[in-house]
């Protein structure tokens, strides 16, 4: 499992490969916070290759969203599979995040 970071125009895109769980959540958090500290303000986390997010992973996304907003930035999510979308709906976090069906859709609206 890993986090791949790339830049598309002025958006930092993070691909989550595998899982976002209690064992690796800090790695994602640090990657995004480093970019935020470096001056980046637009972030997209793409879950196209993600099988599972646990409640710790959800918590890190909430935390990052808050920190990015505090710097007047924006965090978007894309490509949640059916199970992941259900997790967001059950926890009502779908009301907290901007969630796009595809990377293109998320990028076009930034």
């Amino acid at each position, binding site marked *: 499992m890993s986090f791949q970071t790339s830049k598309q125009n002025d958006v930092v895109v993070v691909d989550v490969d595998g*899982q976002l*769980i*209690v*064992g690796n959540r800090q790695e994602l958090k640090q990657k995004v916070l480093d970019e935020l500290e470096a001056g980046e303000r637009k972030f997209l986390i793409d879950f196209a290759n993600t*099988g*599972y997010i*646990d*409640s*710790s992973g*959800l*918590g*890190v996304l*909430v*935390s990052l969203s*808050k920190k990015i907003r505090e710097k007047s930035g924006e965090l978007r999510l894309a490509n949640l599979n*059916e*199970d992941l979308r*259900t*997790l967001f*709906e*059950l*926890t*009502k*976090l779908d*009301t*907290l995040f901007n969630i796009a069906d595809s990377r293109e859709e998320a990028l076009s609206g930034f």
Partner: protein
Amino acid sequence: MLTESSGTDPIPIATNRGGSRQRDSRSATDRAEFALLLPSDLRLVEVAVGYLIGRFRCHAFSGSRLTLNLRVSIAEALANAMLYGNRHDPGKYVRVYVTIDDLHASVTVADEGGGFDPETVPDPTRPENLHRTGGRGIFLMRQLMDEVEFSARGNAVRFVLRREAPHPRRSAGQ
């Protein structure tokens, strides 16, 4: 690392649960009962989840009931036991007791901690709690399982998924 062990489930199966009286008449191939012993090492959560999901798949659990309902509940229970129950103490263990039959999957996760009162866990979907970074694990278990119960001390949780019920349940109002 991850050890199959013997032991007694600290939360006995309720006698009034539907179908429990029929269990003795079923063939041995319908049933599986086993226990795991895990040290409190968060890296083992995914190993144990993967192993257990494989066992459930062999007993004809599939689709989102396997990849969402069972997976999420097992992972959350194990992480809670290691993080909050045993407080990362590598000398303390988490015990997992599994029963599978043709009506149910039942999993008990017990830690060596002092326990807690599950009724004090706030609803993470309330507007005032939505921005909290924690507190969603037990809520998810309750949403995704048919039964969730805690031991009196609060250091063991047992959850049950019936095969026939449609899942996942949506929260009220959805």
